[in-house]
């Protein structure tokens, strides 16, 4: 592993940008907000935060970011998306708006607001393949889940209890990582460390 400090952008169109920025800094990366194509060009990797995916998608189109985002992801830039960010990295979504665009990159079908409304939002321990030190605390907020993945995508976590038991909630495909839940809200930065390592290795 290289000892250099990677520069990781956080897509700052809308959402919990601050929490991801803090988590990345604590995982020894240099975090920067990205709202413009020229800012995207300067980062080694990108976090797509939690937020409202329809708003993010709309603003990415309006500000000419969607094309550059797709190009960089296709060219191999590592990216990590939590919640709305997972939706943005999905090749196909269900229950989105008809005009809702994603960046894509992970061969998976993601269902938006899959668990229900805010009253159904929950936290639950998550066993995460490749992360040591015991289960993570998953915070799911009007969260999506993964309906299915293609052959090239690896499932890293499923829910093991509750009404949605068995559903896929974390996926990796090459340099792309996605979680239904929000590790940035917990103060446990192991998922961000995993992603920073992925950026270093890229």
């Amino acid at each position, binding site marked *: 592993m290289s000892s250099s400090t990677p520069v990781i952008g956080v897509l*700052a*169109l*809308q*959402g*919990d*940008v*601050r*929490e991801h920025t803090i988590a990345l800094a604590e995982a020894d990366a240099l975090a920067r907000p990205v*709202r413009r194509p020229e800012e995207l060009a300067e980062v080694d990797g990108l976090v797509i935060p*939690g*937020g*409202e995916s*329809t*708003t993010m998608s*709309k*603003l990415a189109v*309006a*500000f000419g970011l969607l094309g550059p985002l797709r190009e960089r992801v296709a060219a191999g830039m590592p990216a990590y998306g939590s*919640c*709305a960010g997972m939706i943005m990295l999905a090749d196909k979504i269900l*229950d*989105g*708006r008809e005009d809702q665009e994603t960046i894509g990159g992970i061969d998976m079908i993601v269902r*938006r*607001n899959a668990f229900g*409304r*805010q*009253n*159904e*939002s*929950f*936290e*639950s*321990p998550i066993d995460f393949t490749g992360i040591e030190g015991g*289960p993570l*605390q998953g*915070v*799911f*907020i*009007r969260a999506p889940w993964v309906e299915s993945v293609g052959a090239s995508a690896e499932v890293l976590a499923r*829910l093991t*209890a*509750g*009404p*949605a038991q068995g559903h896929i909630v974390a996926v990796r495909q090459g340099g792309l990582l996605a979680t239904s839940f*929000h590790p940035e*809200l*917990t*103060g446990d930065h192991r998922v961000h460390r995993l992603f920073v390592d992925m950026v270093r290795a890229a």
Partner: protein
Amino acid sequence: MSTAPPVSTGTPETGTARVKRGMAEQLKGGVIMDVVTPEQAKIAEDAGAVAVMALERVPADIRKDGGVARMSDPDMIDGIINAVSIPVMAKSRIGHFVEAQVLQALGVDYIDESEVLTPADEVNHSDKWAFTTPFVCGATNLGEALRRIAEGAAMIRSKGEAGTGNVVEAVRHMRQIRADIRRLTTLDETELFVAAKNLQAPYELVKEVAQHGKLPVVLFSAGGVATPADAALMMQLGAEGVFVGSGIFKSGDPAKRAAAVVKATTFFDDPDMIAKVSRGLGEAMVGINCDDLPETQRYANRGW
């Protein structure tokens, strides 16, 4: 409080403080719009709103019509919930915990215990810890914000003066909250006890704010935003997002203005962008000079 480690039971747990406060974190950098019909809700969603507030009348009409303002009709809230895929908020009267119970039963995503409606209890606010649905409450200063958080509010908004189209009170309240927070961070630990007494807020919350230099929950602005520049102003003053009430659907071209306010909130620190999105929006809502409002018509005085 927000940093306390969870007690893991191994099974999914709903309605935790982290899930409630975390929901507000996801709305940051976004605009929440007042809507009174499913059609307006769709316009708001099309414009990029992060959530809508379902109401029977916007505050400007509540002002005009007078009378008692109450929770909206459940059919009307259902209609809006079914029209959009983004979160839907709705208002209960201050202290009217049964209205709040009804809103929770309807499945709204956030309850605004709001001074815009006529208060139902002039002493107590609702006990917001008793709900799975999170609450947002208004505040004019830090003490008020912390009292609401102590009662379980998972999000705070500056009150401003709703339905006026005049941003002056929103600015006053946001500046006050932020100045109160800055002052706390300059005090030593011994002085925090008296600070808590003066703020009329729980010591533990005062200490947490002094340590972190911010509220333990998300802080939005509300009450008087009518233009993209108003929204950007509130963001530059430290709001983490913006509620727009009457400002959009009381204007000449709601769809265009709504989209412009969303863009100005994302690029709040970029005057060129704010200038660009502010062009050709048609007429803004007329607005009311707050100095002309009699004390009894000032909604910000409701709640304590």
